């Protein structure tokens, strides 16, 4: 009972945040609502006994990605949507049906499989130590790859975001 209430709360926070993030006019509001959706997802993970992942989600999504998005929004101001102008892309009428179609397919598939209505077997314990050991043994190659990817992404982001030299800038303008 309590569990279901918590699930409903987290799920509604997540979905409301996601819908608001995609619908609101003000970009900063969108970013903050997305942060709310990420936090709700973290709560869902925690409710599913995935403590490490839930906390990592909170740390990375709310603490880093949301901030990054907010920073980008602040840095790309100046082309605010004029009041009255559309916030949707010209092809929005394609996007919505596609979304609805995907939703229908997924929900149909979920509803069609009765085995998915089952309850979990028992308590699951995923201590940090076990996760660490798994990362260092079985998943060590993916871990290295992710490390490489993050380094590359860091360098790439810096290289892209770096202000170009003066002459190059004047040439492009």
């Amino acid at each position: 009972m309590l569990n279901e209430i918590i699930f409903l709360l987290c799920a509604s926070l997540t979905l409301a945040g996601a819908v608001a993030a995609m619908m609101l006019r003000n970009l900063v509001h969108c970013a903050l609502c997305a942060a709310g959706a990420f936090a709700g997802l973290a709560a869902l993970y925690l409710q599913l006994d995935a403590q490490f992942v839930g906390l990592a989600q909170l740390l990375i999504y709310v603490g880093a990605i949301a901030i990054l998005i907010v920073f980008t929004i602040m840095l790309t101001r100046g082309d605010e949507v004029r009041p009255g102008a559309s916030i949707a892309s010209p092809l929005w009428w394609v996007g919505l049906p596609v979304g609805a179609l995907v939703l229908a397919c997924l929900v149909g598939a979920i509803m069609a499989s009765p085995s998915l209505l089952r309850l979990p077997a028992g308590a699951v314990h995923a201590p940090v130590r076990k996760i660490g050991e798994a990362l260092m043994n079985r998943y060590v190659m993916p871990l290295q790859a992710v490390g490489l990817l993050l380094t590359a992404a860091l360098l790439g982001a810096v290289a892209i975001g770096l202000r170009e030299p003066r002459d190059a800038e004047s040439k492009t303008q």
Partner: protein
Amino acid sequence: MSRLDQIFVLTGHWLAGWAPAALRPLASAVLAIACIMAVFATCFALTTLAERKLLGRMQNRFGPNRVGPCGLFQPVADGVKMLIKEDIVPFSADKTLHFLAPIVLTVPIWLAFAVLPFGRNMTAIDLDGGILFFFAIGSASELAVFMAGWSSQNKYSVVGAMRAIAQMISYEVPLVLSTVPVLMLAGSLSLNDIVAAQGTYAFGWLARWNVFTPWGLAGLFLFLIAATAESNRSPFDLPEGESEIIAGYLTEYSGFKYALFFLGEYVGLFAGAGLGVTLFLGGWHAPVKGLEWAPSWLWFGVKFAALIFLFIWARATLPRLRLDQLLNFAWRFMVPLSLVNLLVAAAWYWTGAWPFGGAAPIRWVLCAGLFIFPYHWLGRALRGPLPPPRKYSYAE
């Protein structure tokens, strides 16, 4: 000894025992929450007073000494003043966010206390990933600061918020990195395990606190500097630099909301100090063997107070940094040094297995040297070449 040591735990059990069996976990949770909030709110009140008195004395003035004996009721007077002030919301402000920001800032910071071990068996929730929880919860404050600054629709607020976020993100890296050696050597993310790992004695009398190792000492200072910056305190208080940007993201806040921000700042500082005590200063363990008779929570309190004193002392002494100095310091000094500290911790770990006796001092010196050289050269590089002698054109 154990009776006094466990007095809060036993009292808590006894009080929760009055509740019906079904509600007992809830009752003990509420008790723990009430205790933590009461203790740290009192601590907040006393710290504001102690800070002002100490700042005064360190600058050769009296601090507040008018309200009550020795100014002891000054926090009450301040609180009453804050509460009865008019709560002004700017006309063009984003009302919802303006209202939400102090709440979003304050609530997670209180949550961070849930995982700190305040004494033997005195952890509210012994989370498996306690320190991860601590940092995850703490990361919400950056968004809150942004909300406060942006919703005020005031350029000083936005500038202050942007400064604060840049600073908090930059210093979060060394903050987390400086704790990693501790986690590595304790082999756990749980704060209880980390405290337990510091509970034995070296040479039969000296506690094995992390601060007594080279990487622990360096880590403590890196951690304290990063925590100071993280909680926007002097000398890193330039998000609120009055002389440049009024009060930063607090400009448009008054009354109770301002008090909440103020509270959040101090409680964040307490959480940082508590974590510092837990990670580096042995948590609630006594420093030497003969002193275990004192209750564990008292040891925690003493170390906690010492760290708070250190923060106040630094605030009284050091002038505010410039923004570029601040960020250079974070990225060109703190981050490399905390990475070096990881290496030092690894070296310490490997030299721990040295076979010959009397290796401890050699090991210490070796690891300290491993840290000191990068420290020296990074500091040199940060300082850059000396500026040329100043030329006076008009003052001959």
